[in-house]
C-alpha cells in the first residue's frame, strides 16, 4: 500500500513538474534563419527569456516566393514577418490578419548605388536597369521613384537574388545602376570593399518594416504565448541598448557563420541595431499615423490598389504586456551573463 502511495505521489509530482515545464511552440515564418539581422531572438534565447515565458520559437525561414500570409491563415505559422507592402496588400485582398508588433520601425530597405560615379538621386536612375534583391523590393523601388516624381516604368528592373557575388558583380560591372534591397544585402558588399551610397528618399526611411502579423481570429486564443514571445523579443532589443558588445558575443556563438569575416559581421550588426531598436516609446508599438501616411504614396506608386483603414489591422493588444518587464533586472542579467561569458 505504501509503495502504491509513493508511486502515486511520484507520478503526480512528475505530472505537475511536467506541466510547469511545458513550452508552447510559436511557429514564425520569416526570410532568414537565426541571424544577426534579427538579433533580439538570439539574445532572448541566450538569456533564456523565451524559455522563461514558456515559449519555444520554431523558425520557418523561407524564400520570399512563399506566400507568408497564406501560412498564417492555414495555421502552419502563428506569426509572419511581413513588410508594409505585403501587409497592406494582404488586408486589401481580404486576409483576416492583424499587425501586432513592429519589429523594425525604420525601414532597412534602401536604394544603393556605387559611391564612385553612381547616381545622386532617383532621377539619375532613369533609363537604366535597377537590380532587385527579391520581388519584395519592387514595391519599395516603386515608392522611391514616385517619392521623387518618377515612375517605376522609367527604369528596367531585374531580380538578382540575395547572393553576394551576384549583387557585387552586377553593380561593379555596371549591369545595374542601383540595387534595391536592404541593409543586410549590402553589409557584405561594403565589408568586401565595395563602397556604396544610399539615395533612398528620406520620406521612405521612417516606415515600418518587418512587422509581426497574425491571424486576427487567434488573438485571444494565443494571447499568453504571444505576450510571452513579444516580451522576450522586447527584452532582446533592450539588451542591445545596454551592451551591444554582449549582443555581439552572443551572435558570434549562435551564428558563427556570419562572423567568420569580422568586418562583415560588425558592419551587419552596426547596420541592424538602429533598425531593431524601436523609435516609439514602447518597444514594437504599432504606429497608426505612420501607416496612414505611407498609403497615399504607395497608392500613387501603384504598389497597393487602395486605401486601408489602419484600425482594421493594427492591433496593439500585446504591446503593453510586451513592455511589461523590469529594465533593471534585464541589466543585471546582462551583466551577469557578461561576467560569466566574456
Amino acid at each position: 500500500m505504501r509503495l502504491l502511495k509513493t508511486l502515486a505521489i511520484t507520478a503526480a509530482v512528475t505530472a505537475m513538474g511536467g506541466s510547469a515545464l511545458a513550452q508552447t511552440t510559436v511557429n514564425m515564418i520569416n526570410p532568414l534563419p537565426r541571424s544577426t539581422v534579427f538579433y533580439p531572438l538570439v539574445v532572448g534565447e541566450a538569456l533564456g527569456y523565451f524559455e522563461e515565458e514558456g515559449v519555444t520559437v520554431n523558425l520557418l525561414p523561407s524564400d520570399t516566393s512563399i506566400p507568408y500570409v497564406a501560412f498564417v491563415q492555414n495555421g502552419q505559422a502563428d506569426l509572419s514577418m511581413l513588410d508594409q507592402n505585403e501587409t497592406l496588400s494582404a488586408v486589401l485582398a481580404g486576409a483576416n490578419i492583424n499587425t501586432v508588433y513592429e519589429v523594425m520601425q525604420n525601414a532597412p530597405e534602401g536604394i544603393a548605388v556605387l559611391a564612385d560615379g553612381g547616381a545622386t538621386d532617383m532621377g539619375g536612375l532613369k533609363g537604366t536597369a535597377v537590380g532587385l534583391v527579391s520581388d519584395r523590393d519592387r514595391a519599395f523601388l516603386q515608392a522611391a521613384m514616385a517619392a521623387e516624381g518618377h515612375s517605376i516604368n522609367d527604369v528596367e528592373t531585374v531580380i538578382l537574388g540575395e547572393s553576394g557575388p551576384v549583387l557585387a558583380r552586377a553593380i561593379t560591372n555596371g549591369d545595374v545602376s542601383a540595387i534595391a534591397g536592404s541593409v543586410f544585402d549590402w553589409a557584405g558588399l561594403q565589408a568586401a570593399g565595395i563602397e556604396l551610397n544610399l539615395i533612398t528618399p528620406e520620406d521612405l526611411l521612417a516606415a515600418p518594416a518587418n512587422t509581426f502579423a497574425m491571424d486576427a481570429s487567434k488573438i485571444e486564443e494565443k494571447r499568453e504565448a504571444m505576450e510571452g514571445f513579444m516580451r522576450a523579443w522586447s527584452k532582446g532589443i533592450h539588451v542591445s541598448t545596454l551592451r551591444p558588445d554582449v549582443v555581439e558575443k552572443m551572435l558570434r556563438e549562435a551564428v558563427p557563420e556570419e562572423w567568420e569575416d569580422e568586418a562583415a559581421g560588425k558592419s551587419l550588426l552596426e547596420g541592424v541595431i538602429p533598425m531593431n531598436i524601436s523609435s516609439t516609446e514602447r518597444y514594437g508599438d504599432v504606429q497608426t499615423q505612420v501607416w496612414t501616411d505611407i498609403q497615399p504614396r504607395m497608392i500613387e506608386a501603384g504598389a497597393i490598389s487602395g486605401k486601408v483603414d489602419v484600425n482594421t489591422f493594427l492591433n496593439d493588444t500585446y504591446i503593453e504586456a510586451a513592455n511589461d518587464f523590469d529594465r533593471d533586472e534585464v541589466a543585471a542579467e546582462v551583466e551577469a551573463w557578461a561576467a560569466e561569458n566574456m
Partner: protein
Amino acid sequence: MAEATASLGPSASGGLYLRTRRWLTHAAIFGTLILAWEIGTRTELLDPLFYPAPSKIITSFWRIYVTQGNIWKHLYVSIGLVLAGFAAGSILGITLGSLVGLNPLVRRFIKPYVIVLEATPRIAVAPLLIAALGFGAQSKIAIIMLVCFFAPFINTLSGVVNVNEEKLELFKSLGASKMQILKKLVLPEAVPVIMAGERLALTAALSGVLVAEFIQRDQGIGALILTYTRNLNMASAFACIFTLTIIGFAIFKGMELMDRYIAFWSHEDGMTRVSQNRNVRWAKQGWAR
C-alpha cells in the same frame, strides 16, 4: 599454381605501375589546376571576391569542420534528407516503373502523367508542396523525392519493357511460367538498368536537397551556402560546395560498388568473383569442377 603465380607476376606489377602512373598523372593535373588558380587569385587575374584562393578555401574547410565545427549539424540534416528522399523516390520510381512496364493497361494511363510531371519544374512545385505538407522535413523529402524519382522510374520501365525478344521466345518455347520469366529473364535484364537509374537518382537527390533548403532555409548545407554567399564569404561557400562535390563523388562511387555486387552478372569482374567464390565453396565440399 606456382606456374600461374609466376606468370601473373610481371603483368600484376605492370598493372600496378600503370595504376600508379595514372594516379600520378591525375594528381599532377589537379595540382597544376589548383596552383594556377592560386596564382591567378594572388595576381588578381581572377577576382578574389568571387574566386577565393584555394589556400583560403582550405583554411575555411579547417574552420567549418574543426575549429568552428558549424558545418556538422547542417551536414547531418542534408545527408539525412538526401537518403530519405532518395529512398522514397526510388521506391516510388521502381514500383511505378514495374507496374507500368509489366501491365500495358496501366502503362497507357499512367505514363503520360509521369512524363508531364517530369516536364514540370520542381522549383515551381516546391511552394505548393510546402503548403500541402507543411514546413519541415516532410515537404523537403517530397521535393527530393520528386527530383530523383524519374530516373528509377524510366530505367525500370525501360529494363522491364526492353527484354531481349529472342530470349523471351526461347523461354516461352521451353514452357517457362510467367513467374519463371520474371525471375530468370526480366529481372536479370532489368536490374543493371535499374541500378544505373539509381545512380542518377542519388546524385539528383543532392541537387534536390539544395532546392529544398534554398526555399526552406532553417538548416542544411543549402541554407549554409545561402548565408555564406549573402555575406560574400566565398571561401566558406566554396568549402560547402566542395563538400557537396565530395559527397556526390563518394555517393557515385558507392553506387558503382553496390552495382557490382547487386548486378554482378553484368560486370566481368563480378562474374569472375562469383565464379571464384563458387569454386572455393565447391572445393570445400569436395566437388571437383
